[in-house]
Structure formats: C-alpha cells, structure tokens
C-alpha cells in the first residue's frame, strides 16, 4: 500500500501558495480581454485563466443582464463557462470533450476556465446549459 502517490510525508511539503501566481509577473502588463457586443474590458494577469479574470472583475454582465461568462466548476468539466475566442490566442489545459469537441476547439471555442491568454483577446459569450433548476 502506497500511503500517497506523492509519498506520505512528502505529500505534506508545502506547495507554492496561490498568491505566488499573482505576484510572479508583477512586471508583465496584463492582457486585456474585450467582450464582443459590450464596452467591457477585463484585465488578465499572467498565470490567470480567462475565467479567473472575469471572476476577479466580479463577472461583468452582458446587455441581456446575464453574466458574460458563467462560473461553474472552474476546472474544465461542467462546460458552463464556454466562450468563443474571436481575436487573439490562448493556451488551453484539458477540457471535457463533452463540452468542447475537437472541431469546436479548432473554431475557437474554449472553456474560459481552461484558457490562458497569450495576447489581448476578444471573447464572445456562448449560451449553454440552463441557469436555473426547472
């Protein structure tokens, strides 16, 4: 029996705190994320996902009064933060293929929680799953 994958006591070695992500690139100017059809722009510091940036900006609303990007699991599984990147480039982590097919990914669809800006971006909101329990 292995006690933990990373090995017992070693597993309790401190990992870098999340704030290290924020502080690491204080010098690099944040990428700007514009939202199609709104006047809103959200700043995204290096190391943060598109969704992190929207959450930090208190998730601005689109003209229809709904959040531009909906916050769900934040880990690529639930699909509710799906957006289309219409300008700019991102690097992506693993996303559930139940929500972004390979073809959709090629067309610029991503889950915002798994997309890390490599340039300034323009994103378009994509309405997905129902927001209310019926």
């Amino acid at each position: 029996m292995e006690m933990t994958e990373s090995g017992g006591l070693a597993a309790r070695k401190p990992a870098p705190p999340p704030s290290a992500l924020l502080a690491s690139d204080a010098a690099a100017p944040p990428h700007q994320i514009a939202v199609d059809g709104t006047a809103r722009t959200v700043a995204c510091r290096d190391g943060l996902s598109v969704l992190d940036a929207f959450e930090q900006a208190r998730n601005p609303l689109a003209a229809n009064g709904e959040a531009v990007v909906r916050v769900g699991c934040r880990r690529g599984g639930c699909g509710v933060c799906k957006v289309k990147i219409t300008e700019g480039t991102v690097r992506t982590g693993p996303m559930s293929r139940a929500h972004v097919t390979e073809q959709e990914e090629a067309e610029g669809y991503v889950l915002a929680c798994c997309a890390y800006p490599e340039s300034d971006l323009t994103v378009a909101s994509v309405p997905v799953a129902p927001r209310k329990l019926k």
Partner: protein
Amino acid sequence: MAITGVLRPGLIQIRVLDMAAAITHYVDRIGLYKVATGDDGRVYLKARDEFDHHSVILNPSDRAGLDYVAFKVDGDAALSSFEKRIAAWGLAVDHVPAGEQPGIGRRIGCTIPSGHRIELYAHADLAEMRPGTLNPDVWDAEPHGMEARRFDHCLLYGPNIDQVEKFFTEALDFSMAERVDLPETGALAIWMSCGMKAHDIAFVRHEEPGKFHHVAFELENWNDIGRAADIITRYNISIDIGPTRHGITRGQTIYFFDPSGNRCETFCGGYSFYPDHPVRVWNDKELGKGIFYYERVLNDRFLTVLT
C-alpha cells in the same frame, strides 16, 4: 435493526481528465489512500475507515463525470436474488466478471431510468490497510488531508425520478427518507436510504440523463469540515459552497470541485434513519432552507452545474 440485502454504496467510478492532478486531489487533499493502478490506467483508492479493497475508482477519460456507482449486498445469494428482481422489475441486467478490477467479485449492472449505471456486487477482498480488529487503535496509518473516513453517498441528476424511486424501493428495498415536492410538477428531488444513514443515494430531476452532481466523503465532525475548508483555500481548490448545513438530511458540509470539475463533498452529521420513519417533505416555500439551512437561498451554481 438488521441491515440485509443492499448494505451500502461501496464503489464509485469517476472519469478524470488529468490523472496526476486527480490523485493529488483525492489522496493528498481529501485524504484517501492509493491501493493499485490497473493496466488500463484506472487508479483504485480507499478511505481509511473502510475494510474493503477499494471504494473510489478514477478512470482516465477525455470527459468528466460518473461511470457507475455500485452497491455491496450481503452475499452471493442476495446478488442472484437481486438479479432476478431487477429483471422482473423490467430492466436489462448485464454481468461484469470478477477480475474486471482488482479485489472485487462478480458484479451485475443495469441502466436505471435516469440514465445512470447502477451495479451490485457481493464480494470485496479485505484491504491491506484497514481498521484494526484486535484491540484496535483509532487509526494505524496517520490520517492526512481532510481525513475522509469513508465514501458515503452520491447525488445524481437525470429524468424519470419517479421511476427511479420505484426502482430503488421496489427492486432494491431502499426507503425514501426525504423529498422535495413542488406543487405543480411533483417530485424534484429524492433522498433514499438502504440502512440508517439519512441517504445512500439521491436524485434530482433533470432533462439530460446520466449527469453527476457530487460524490461525498464522510468526516468525523464539524471541526474537520473547518479544516477541510482551510485545505481548500490553502491549495486553491475550486470552491462551490460552504462550510454550511443542509436542512435536508441535516448534514454539515462543504462542496468543492476536483481538478476535472467533478463536484466533491466532505460532510459530517445528519440524522439517523429507520425504515419505519415517515418521509420528510420540503416544498417550494422553504426550499432555500432545505438546501442551505444557514444561507436560506438557493444557489444556481450548486443546483445546475454538473458533469
């Protein structure tokens, strides 16, 4: 009370997008132990208070969600009897031979009307690392992470929950402990027990079949929920809600997401259930309190974000 027939939910197989991250989450953070890795890449885990070989199976996949939940029954004769009862109830039963995964005997499976795969099995090897039985200490291996004691229950979303309720009560002898009834549309959610827990499995009505809401692990007490919250913040785990309490089941709880977006719960408490208890019912007037007793308002993310 004698618990016969279905004993408890014993196995749950969850799909994960990144196995290394999943192992860190379930082992180092939630506090499970790694038992084995299969040739097909599946990873087998157990909690420290469980006697059986394993309880959680992580399945590497390109999509998150639930493969199946399996209930342990009290012996092979019971397994054969449930096979006949499930077929008589009207579901097709298939067979998974022993050896499909380490340490577990033959299983039977079926797809219930909500679209989820439910399995039953009678045999599990005893785990190498298990609670002591002669002058036992409170633990042998030192607890770590959130110190989860056992895989406890899951909540699933899908259609036809009236049929699901009938299946669990008629074919598997579960009892309904608690439900949410809406005046216009009937049962919105059901909590069902096969023993003395307030629930062993729960369902919420939802259009899309086979969806997964959460897997829950039991902690010892409310202080441990606070410690789980510390770990969630310390390691930047994606939080859903909590620490809080449910009116329904009265469990004290915190919800968060694994690195593939599957929702996990660590909880403690809840009332003891006996099968002669009347069903507790919530309606639309106090549903906020039913779901989150302290906040008293519904939360759209908790109610609608699924894998």
